[in-house]
């Protein structure tokens, strides 16, 4: 069978401009080769910066943000598309090769109807008339399982859910009958329960239309469901390239093995869960416009233990954290901390009360002032709560840096000069500086690559044993819950649907929602997707 896409010795470079230094050339992708046949799916997997998106875009002969394809060959049906002129490439893009971006919400123009955007490329390229394109779009909406396919195209992007938007984007890519589609992390930004539907829809549509695809992701479990072959990338080089079966079941490289085995540690839950440090009693909360986001939630957390709160977006899990910190005063119910009631509003809490509960955010990027150095960021709570200044403060900051396993050299860096994992470590150090008793972790690892996230979790565990910290860990990732929690709370639409020690909460009999949630977590197993879809009891919300 002839190759549809054949990439040989691809080399992509970019010029970086480090502040205060002369510009330098950096190699993003080096010597990558692969082949793709019609109707097959190749998964490109790797952590951020591995060059996987850059390789995917090279199939459209495109270099994003100053990246230049400087070597190698990208042949589509035997023609080297890198050698085509601008007009030639324009004929390829959006007609023979299409692209599905990670964030569909940002990729659609909010001012135009979905239907018009879906057919635009096909009509522009003169591949079909407007009516034909509409018919094809309707067919694709059906294949992708979108609700009311006849009228779906009349809606605007803000009128449909995130999962539907991602499927509409897939329809847009499939509409011109392309030979190849590049999927750039299409499900990464979605909830697990939504991800599974989108994944199934994409898989079905690819099979139905017999299109080839490059599927880019950092989640090996996801790619195992959809691909025929997998290429593992790191630092722009190929680590391992083989069939799904071989990569999952018999990886030959250490890095691939680490990816396959990520998060297989499980923490033994604490036997005694009766001594409550924090107790939330029948708490309800609403926004100032009267919209109710929490309905009578009751749970407790013991000293030195971890409570995991699980749920999809909009389930109220982050709101619960905001209520505990005092950012959103509850409308009903009470919260006690060490048997003393916590005043509801932030302003009425004493400095010492504030010190004892710290919060770690999901996005360390926005949680730290970009104009402050690591010294200022970690040092401020020291000055604020303990009055440390000058040398004493510096010494303590260095001590904290050591605790989060970072060297002293980072002390004068700005957040922009740190990697994602390092930023989250600094955020942890800032929380630690206050010597808190309880740390609320709001999805601290969900924006990180799996191996980096694993490092952060290990650090949190280590700190817990060292200083008897208690955590409330908000997440949508059941694997993390299994790894670190003592007790588990499952939330759905502002209500607590399940709460108890981990062993009890995560074993049957399940209520319908917990069942759906548990079954939606991709497992590193071929054929998992089909098996789950045939056995689940409840359809995910909003789809």
């Amino acid at each position, binding site marked *: 069978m002839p190759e549809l896409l054949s990439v040989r010795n691809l080399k992509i470079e970019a010029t970086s*401009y480090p*502040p*205060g230094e002369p510009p330098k050339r950096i190699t993003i992708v080096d010597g990558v080769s692969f082949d793709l046949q019609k109707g097959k799916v190749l998964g490109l997997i790797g952590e951020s910066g591995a060059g996987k998106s850059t390789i995917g875009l090279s199939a459209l002969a495109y270099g994003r943000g100053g990246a230049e394809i400087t070597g190698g060959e990208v042949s589509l049906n035997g023609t080297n598309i890198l050698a085509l002129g601008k007009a030639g490439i324009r004929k390829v893009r959006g007609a023979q090769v299409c692209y599905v971006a990670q964030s569909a919400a940002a990729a659609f123009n909010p001012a135009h109807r979905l239907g018009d955007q879906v057919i635009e490329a096909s009509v522009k390229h003169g591949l079909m008339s407007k009516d034909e394109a509409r018919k094809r779009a309707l067919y694709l909406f059906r294949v992708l399982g979108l609700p009311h396919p006849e009228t779906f195209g009349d809606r605007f992007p803000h009128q449909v859910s995130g999962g539907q938007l991602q499927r509409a984007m897939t329809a847009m890519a499939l509409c011109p009958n392309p030979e190849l589609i590049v999927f750039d992390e299409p499900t990464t930004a979605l909830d697990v329960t939504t991800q599974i539907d989108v994944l199934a829809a994409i898989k079905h549509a690819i099979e139905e239309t017999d299109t080839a695809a490059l599927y880019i992701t950092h989640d090996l479990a996801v790619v195992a469901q959809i691909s025929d072959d997998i290429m593992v990338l790191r630092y722009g080089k190929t680590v391992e390239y083989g069939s799904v079966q071989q990569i999952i079941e018999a990886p030959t490289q250490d890095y691939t093995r680490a990816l396959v085995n990520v998060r297989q540690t499980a923490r033994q839950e604490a036997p005694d869960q009766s001594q409550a440090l924090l107790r939330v009693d029948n708490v309800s909360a609403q926004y100032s416009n009267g919209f109710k986001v929490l309905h009578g939630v009751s749970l407790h957390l013991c000293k030195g233990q971890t409570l995991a709160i699980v749920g999809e977006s909009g389930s109220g899990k982050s709101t619960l954290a905001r209520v505990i*910190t*005092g*950012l959103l005063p509850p409308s009903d119910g009470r919260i006690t901390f060490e048997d003393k009631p916590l005043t509801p509003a*932030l302003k009425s*809490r004493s*400095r010492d009360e*504030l*010190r004892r509960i*710290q*919060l770690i*955010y999901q*996005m360390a990027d*926005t*949680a*730290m*002032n*970009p*104009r*402050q*150095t690591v010294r200022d960021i970690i040092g*401020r*709570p020291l000055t*604020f709560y303990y009055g440390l200044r000058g040398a004493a403060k510096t010494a303590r900051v260095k001590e904290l840096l050591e605790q989060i396993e970072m060297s002293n050299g980072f002390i004068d860096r*700005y*957040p*922009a*000069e740190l990697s994602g994992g390092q930023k989250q470590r600094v955020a942890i150090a*800032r929380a630690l500086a*206050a010597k808190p008793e309880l740390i609320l972790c709001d999805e601290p690892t969900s924006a990180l690559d799996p191996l980096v996230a694993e490092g952060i979790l290990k650090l949190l565990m280590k700190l817990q044993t060292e200083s008897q910290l208690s955590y409330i860990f908000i997440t949508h990732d059941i694997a993390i819950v299994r790894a670190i929690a003592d007790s588990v709370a499952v939330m759905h639409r502002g209500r607590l649907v399940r709460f108890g020690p981990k062993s009890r909460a995560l074993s049957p009999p399940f209520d319908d929602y917990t069942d759906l949630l548990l079954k939606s977590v991709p497992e590193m197993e071929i054929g998992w997707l089909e098996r789950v879809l045939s056995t689940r009891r409840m359809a995910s919300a909003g789809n």
Partner: protein
Amino acid sequence: MRLREIPITAWVGILGIALACFCAAFAPLIAPYGETEVVGGVWQEADAQFFFGLDNLGRDILSRLIYGARTTLSVALAATVISFSLGILLSFIAAVSGGLIDTVFSRFNDLMMSIPTLIFALVVLAVLPQHLIVLILVMAVLDSTRVYRLGRAVALDVAVMEFVEAARLRGEGTTWIIFREILPNTLSPLLAEFGLRFAFSILFLSTLSFLGLGIQPPAADWGGMVKDNKDGIIFGISAALVPGTAIAALAICVNLVVDWLLKRTSSLKGGRGDA
């Protein structure tokens, strides 16, 4: 910061501003003639003795330009600095506090902006005693409404960021949040606005002088000098262009320096990149 890192354009700006400041500080020492001294014929041509020629009353333009730097620079600069301090402080308080304070401040600001600036200034200046301080304050207050608008918009963007929330959770007061968390992250657009507002202040001052409520004759200021000599242009006499050029040059110099500061504050290192 090392001197070598300052680009050429910024040096040009710095030198221009330094020259203007030097003239303003030592005017009586470097000016060849007195500020109001009549030394020759009306609109006498430039020659070796009178570098820029003489003005509509026969006064030396170069000397008046040097003296004029005093009033023009000090009034425009003072007015801009005060208007920025006032505008930024009030707008940041509004953005951080929100609610009633924000509404009251913002609607009052709208009220002020709804009255044409020039007419407002004329009425107020006509009522109040003729004094330099009063002039500066009136210009500053009127200009601060524009600064308030911009300041509130950029501060609102930053005030909803998580690091501000983190500071609130720590228990920080409003002062810390305004000056340590928000101000450093909004400097870029505010600095750009500063360069623009300074140029506008010089022009506004000259407009007021032209209408007789700004700097009072016979004291020299650059805007007033343009006005005094504007009739000469009809007869092909370029006396009005000299102070005009000085105003343009100063505005450009200020903007060159501001551009450099802007690039420094918004550079990748510790910057937000956008804004």
